[in-house]
């Protein structure tokens, strides 16, 4: 979805689109939060002889979280590049198609 696509729309539809996107981002953040807790708990906590995290477990959870966020940021950059590459390729194909036709 290109932001430019929203240009021609009446105000009401633009609002609807924006709030749909907001809602989806909010939902995705909350899901990511839950998945991250699940993952770091799974990898870091294995002993249930006490009811509080010990300092090793706390440190592990902190590092796990930090690492996941850095990893996630890096994948995000690569993902954007791969998407951009795919769109550029598609536009070139359309152009070549038009030149053949013209």
């Amino acid at each position, binding site marked *: 979805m290109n932001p430019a696509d929203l240009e021609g729309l009446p105000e009401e539809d633009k609002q609807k689109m924006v709030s749909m996107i907001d809602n989806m981002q909010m939902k995705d953040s*909350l899901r990511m939060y839950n998945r991250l807790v699940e993952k770091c708990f799974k990898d870091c906590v294995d002993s249930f002889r006490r*009811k509080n995290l010990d300092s090793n477990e706390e440190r592990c959870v902190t590092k796990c979280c930090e690492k996941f966020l850095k990893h996630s940021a890096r994948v995000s950059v690569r993902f954007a590049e791969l998407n951009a590459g795919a769109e550029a390729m598609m536009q070139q194909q359309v152009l070549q198609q038009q030149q053949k036709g013209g």
Partner: protein
Amino acid sequence: MATPPNSNMSPAEKAKAFDMAQLEMEYRVDLYNAMTASCFAKCMDTRYKEGDLNVGENSCVDRCAAKYWQVTGIVGQMLGGMQQQQQQPR
């Protein structure tokens, strides 16, 4: 926590408040389900000789739930801190 819908809101604000209330409930259901699945995996003997939880399993579940909740707190603080960092430069 989200502000629940109330009578002083404009229709657009009210629609937004309903959406937020729904997201928050989904988040809590999701958290409870993840806690249940995680503590089942950590504490239960899956040979299923018995349908009941034995003493060891019961106390494991209690501690597991407490620890899971603490992890939720740590991760939440880190995500919150990160969000603030992103917002400060503006």
